[in-house]
């Protein structure tokens, strides 16, 4: 890297100081210059005072994965100077606040140091601690604008949009931007060799995080009831749902066409969703691993009593509380079979915000069609980071798939309604909704029931119902989105991956191909796995499963569900909590192909 429109840089600050808006400003300015860009926020589980980083990758080819080391490090937090300096690529640059010189011992011979006295300048220009701290961030953005050749007209226009109505803030921001910009130009060679040049490759794109996209998908799919208990990294999903509903779901007289309940815990949130789903509403709850664990009992009820329910699991790192602000894909195995007894659930795996939007809609359709819980398996990286994605489109002809629901007219034609009798091969039995017609009444229970809906403790009657659920879930698996497959001529093995690993894996495969290693690619998008996944596994003797957890959970699911010989599936696991990097894929895949454990 380290070229024009192809480099990455990292900004280290202290959380709670207002650096987020400066970082967003930089991202958006690059995006508006027509240059593909992604940002990764690496933040602490804390409100104020701990180190936080923002990584920005500029890639004219549109690669989205995280790539260390960094061409440029913007070190604004003396507390992390030592580790930040280590992450700079040889020949790279270090920019820092030179108001207080950096200890010589920390510096390296193979990097160029760019000192900007940000603190000094801001103290001289602004009054009061708060404004000085805030404006220091805008000032470093200004310095970066000079060093990277960010179009100042774009920056000015953005400030105007953001602060146009607040003259005082607008003035301060303008001043701060210029402080950094002018100083950098006067004292350093601008721009750096790695810098930006206008392109036209973001025209049909947006910058959005997955939680916003999923929330929007829920609004468009017609969800009316949302229940939640705040948890990082899922919180902003419901906050966005609320904001969109306030915008789009108020009637002329100000009434709300939605009901959001902030529950007392995730157990209750799951119960609320199930109650609403039983009534016939599209209902959902966003949560993360700890919440999923609490919902376990209720999820078994929804599975067995066959009640539609949609769950967004924005996965975070670790068992227990773990690392709440780090990303992982470590709930795959437990969620696939969540709850006691024999269970199996529909999972959808979006790779980016665009798929969060479409899969939110798919999740509601599948949940109603198959009368079962559906989990949209997101993660922190997808949910909370801004991704560049194609503008969303909505087909106005779309109507919700409500599945088999007997209304009053249909009930009139039925001699007697029995809840759990399936009439065709997909194993789905028609249901009725409360309040519609006395002929449709039945008793929903999580206790043993027979196909007529009656209580049972009879072995055969019990088996009859749960055997049908096996058929139903298999049909549901076939109805999940098909995997993404990229076949390459001359491929000798396959790589199977999931979710947000997509970017790093696709880029890694491109790089490997340049080195003569040609591999096929499959990304699963649904569980139970559909036939296309089995077919792909049959293409090659050997596959490498790339995922973000310690134990190779996707690999385990593939072995369990497709009967693939474990020896045929190599495992590349990345589970430190940061988004997967391309280098890890390249090195790991190579090692595995050479027979070395990754």
């Amino acid at each position, binding site marked *: 890297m380290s070229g024009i429109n192809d480099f990455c840089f990292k900004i280290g600050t202290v959380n709670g100081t207002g650096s987020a808006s400066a970082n967003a400003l930089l991202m958006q300015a690059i*995006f*508006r210059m027509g240059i593909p860009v992604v940002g990764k926020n690496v933040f602490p589980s804390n409100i104020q005072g701990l180190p936080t980083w923002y990584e920005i990758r500029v890639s004219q080819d549109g690669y989205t994965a995280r790539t260390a080391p960094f061409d440029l490090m913007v070190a604004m937090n003396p507390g992390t100077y030592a580790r930040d300096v280590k992450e700079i690529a040889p020949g790279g640059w270090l920019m820092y606040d030179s108001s207080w010189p950096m200890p010589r011992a920390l510096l390296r011979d193979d990097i160029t140091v760019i000192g900007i006295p940000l603190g000094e300048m801001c103290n001289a220009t602004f009054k009061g601690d708060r404004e000085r701290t805030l404006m220091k961030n805008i000032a470093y953005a200004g310095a970066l604008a000079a060093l990277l050749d960010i179009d100042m007209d774009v920056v000015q226009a953005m400030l105007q949009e953001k602060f146009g109505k607040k003259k005082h803030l607008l003035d301060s921001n303008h001043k701060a931007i210029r402080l950094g910009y002018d100083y950098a130009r006067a004292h350093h060679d601008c721009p750096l060799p790695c810098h930006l040049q206008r392109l036209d490759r973001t025209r049909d*794109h*947006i*910058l959005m995080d997955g939680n916003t996209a999923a929330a*929007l998908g829920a*609004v*468009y799919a017609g969800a*009316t*009831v949302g*229940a939640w208990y705040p948890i990082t990294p899922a919180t902003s999903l419901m906050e966005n749902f609320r904001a969109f509903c306030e915008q*789009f779901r108020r*009637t002329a007289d*100000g*009434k*709300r*066409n*939605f*009901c*959001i*309940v902030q*529950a*007392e815990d995730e*157990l*209750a949130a*799951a*119960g*609320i969703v*199930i*109650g*609403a*789903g*039983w*009534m*016939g*509403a599209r*209902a959902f709850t966003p949560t993360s691993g700890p919440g999923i664990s609490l919902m376990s*009992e*209720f999820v078994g*009820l929804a599975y067995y009593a066959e009640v539609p329910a949609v769950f967004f699991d924005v996965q975070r790192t670790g068992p227990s509380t773990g690392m709440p602000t780090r990303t992982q894909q470590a709930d795959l195995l437990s969620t696939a079979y969540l709850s006691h007894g024999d269970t199996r659930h529909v999972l959808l795996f979006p790779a980016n915000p665009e798929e969060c939007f479409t899969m939110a809609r798919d999740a509601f359709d599948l949940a109603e069609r198959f009368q079962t819980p559906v989990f949209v398996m997101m993660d922190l990286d997808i949910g909370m980071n801004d991704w560049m994605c194609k*503008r*969303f*489109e909505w*087909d*106005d002809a*779309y109507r919700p798939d409500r599945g088999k629901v007997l209304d009053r007219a249909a009930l009139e034609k039925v001699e007697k309604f029995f809840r759990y009798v399936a009439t065709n091969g997909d194993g789905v039995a028609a249901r*009725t*909704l*409360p*309040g519609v*017609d*006395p002929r*449709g*009444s039945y*008793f*929903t*229970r*999580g*206790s043993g029931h027979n196909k007529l809906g009656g*209580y049972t403790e009879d072995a055969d009657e019990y088996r009859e119902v749960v055997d049908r659920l096996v058929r139903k879930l298999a049909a549901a698996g076939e109805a999940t989105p098909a995997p993404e497959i990229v076949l390459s001529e001359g491929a000798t093995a396959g790589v199977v991956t999931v979710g947000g690993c997509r970017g790093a894996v696709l880029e890694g495969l491109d790089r490997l191909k340049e080195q003569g290693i040609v591999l096929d690619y499959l990304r699963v998008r649904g569980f139970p796995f559909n036939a296309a996944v089995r077919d792909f596994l049959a293409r090659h003797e050997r596959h490498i499963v790339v995922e973000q957890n310690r134990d190779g959970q996707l690999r385990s699911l593939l072995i369990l569900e497709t009967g693939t010989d474990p020896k045929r599936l190599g495992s590349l696991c990345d589970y430190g909590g940061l988004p997967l990097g391309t280098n890890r894929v390249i090195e790991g895949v190579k090692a595995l192909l050479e027979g070395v454990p990754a």
Partner: protein
Amino acid sequence: MTSIPKPRVQHPSSTRNALGLSRRDYEGGMSTLCAGCGHDSVTAALIDAFWQLDIEPHRVAKLSGIGCSSKTTAYFINQAHGFNSVHGRMPAVATGANAANRELYFVGVSGDGDSLSIGLGQMCHAIRRNVRMLYVLENNGVYGLTKGQFSASADIGSKSKKGEPNVQPPIDPVLLALTLGASFVARSFSGDKAQLVPLLKAGLMHGGFALVDVISPCVTFNDHEASTKSYLYTRQHYHEVAPVDFVPLRREIAAAGPVEGGGAVRSVTMHDGSTVHFRMLADDYDPTDREAAYRYVRAAHQRGEVATGLLYVDQGNADMHGVNGTVDRALTSVPFEELCPGNAKLQELMEEYR
């Protein structure tokens, strides 16, 4: 567990309500509870209440948790949808169901284990949200279904069947609900149908969460001499504070006037215009004064008495939907076209993400 079916009481088929339905039309499946179980009497009272109120059976949603008490939703109104959920979590399911369709009558049936131990938090939060529902807590001081362990409502000193005394202080759902700001709080006894039926009716017509704590003896595990939740103990220590007569709106004229049995009469108008007449047996009892109600119930308990009746009612509080400002109709009835903003709006929105 024994499961002797309770003999059915035959009613003259000529007795029909305004919908032309007989009491039978409000019955459910055969009970499998122990003969004499208090819960079956509560079921019978519920059947009367719905029947007398002329509520269309299929406009009722019955929900429960797990326990002997929670089984009873299967024993009334066959033509209503029922939901036997998981232990202690009925309030959440009811909240969601009510959120989706505010037009139905919701009745939740729970036990003291279901509501005061595993599901205590859920019940408290349903009260706090003021979910519009009749919440019947069939209180027997034990876990019936798991064979007789003490529940959190057992009084100190009350003895188990094997003679062990309960040593932990009880949680009184009435006091708890009063503290939490519940808008309708009542207590009754499964053995006093005359008191219970009007209370259930008033609860059903209440505009928010209506708690009716019903002392409902467990004949199998907690009806012995040293129990404070037995039939005998409850009868002996029964203290009726404010028996009520519930008068639905359209029967106002026919039934108005003083209630039999003497005592001062107070009337509270429910949100739909129905009326509850209180017959004040206790001097100066004011069922609209939360603090006074709390003091009264507590003092009665300290004297070893079980204060019963409609102990507190407040019609002024908005329910969950009132607070949320939800549309008046069921959310399930809003057409998709009104829920989905459409592609044109989406494209406008996309501009904000550039």
